[in-house]
């Protein structure tokens, strides 16, 4: 092939690619995914559990983490709030805005996978990395935190399935999950 022909072909190819790059995707294009319930009623208890179990300041209560958890037990959203839940100790309860910040962080981790899990009515939550890490199936610095079927697991998986899980007494599994982890000594001494 002559050099001039070769150069012409390359130039045309580059021109087509440049035009396509500028015009193929509208600036306001959005990709739709199926996302789990983000309401205060549906996700609020899940967010509170995540704050308690995952959101300590030395774990996911940091902006340096991909999965970021906000709440009164860890990182606060408002610059005037401190990591303290008790009003008597100068703290404030976790706010709906913090629940939403945690929601956005969690759902944005693997949006396509999250969409698939929600589309499947939560039948396969283990497709999500955060579930596998929490269950200890995948390497996790914090170790294995939950066991399939326990209150913690039911709190998360029922949310992914679009349901509210209640125990025998009608208490939300997320509320029961707050009791984890249990320390045999110091916890008991304060009860």
């Amino acid at each position: 092939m002559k050099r001039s022909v070769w150069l012409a072909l390359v130039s045309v190819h580059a021109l087509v690619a440049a035009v396509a790059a500028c015009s193929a995707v509208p600036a306001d294009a959005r990709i739709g995914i199926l996302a789990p319930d983000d309401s205060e009623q549906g996700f609020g208890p899940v967010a509170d559990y995540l704050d308690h179990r995952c959101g300590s300041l030395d774990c996911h209560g940091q902006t340096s983490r991909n999965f970021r958890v906000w709440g009164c037990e860890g990182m606060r959203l408002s610059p005037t709030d401190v990591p303290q839940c008790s009003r008597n100790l100068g703290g404030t309860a976790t706010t709906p805005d913090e629940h939403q910040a945690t929601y956005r962080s969690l759902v944005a981790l693997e949006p396509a996978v999250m969409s698939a899990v929600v589309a499947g009515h939560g039948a396969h939550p283990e497709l999500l990395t955060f579930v596998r890490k929490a269950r200890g199936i995948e390497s996790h610095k914090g170790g294995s935190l939950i066991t399939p079927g326990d209150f913690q697991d039911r709190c998360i998986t029922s949310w992914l399935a679009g349901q509210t899980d209640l125990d025998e007494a009608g208490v939300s599994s997320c509320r029961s999950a707050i009791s984890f982890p249990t320390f045999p000594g110091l916890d008991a001494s304060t009860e």
Partner: protein
Amino acid sequence: MRGYLPSLLAVAAAAIGPLGCVDIVHTDQVQALGGEAPGVGPGPTHRPGQPCLVCHGGQGPASFQMSLGGTVYDTQGQSAPAEGVQVQIEDITGASVTATTNSAGNFFVPLDQWQPKFPLLMQVSRGGVTQQMLTYSSREGSCAGCHSNPSGPRSPGPIYVNASQKP
């Protein structure tokens, strides 16, 4: 040029090799701590309020390793150290250890004495007054890793024995 290539590669490897052993993040953390305070050399009372395990966590530069370390202050919002405070630490298995703060308010648990299984729960006590940590430590052995001064959205503030009148 071919004759020089092995020499050039050897020089490049020698130059790059040591860099592979340097943890830049850790180096930055150590440097951020600054120098020793005037009149207080390395030892149990140095650097109160700093994250102990940055240097004592196994990456150096200190050779003495701790599993836990921190500083307790007398009163919330004030800078006077609290000496003689019992710091009780319990890990998730129920194993526990108690350390006592020194004149700088510092306490530490040597690594060869205890290697706890995280998470940890802690409380500090002195003279019948007890403050219990309301959350737990999931992985951080330096109290100041979270309890930095001042308090804010990312820190509950330094550890204290006596609460101030107005929290």
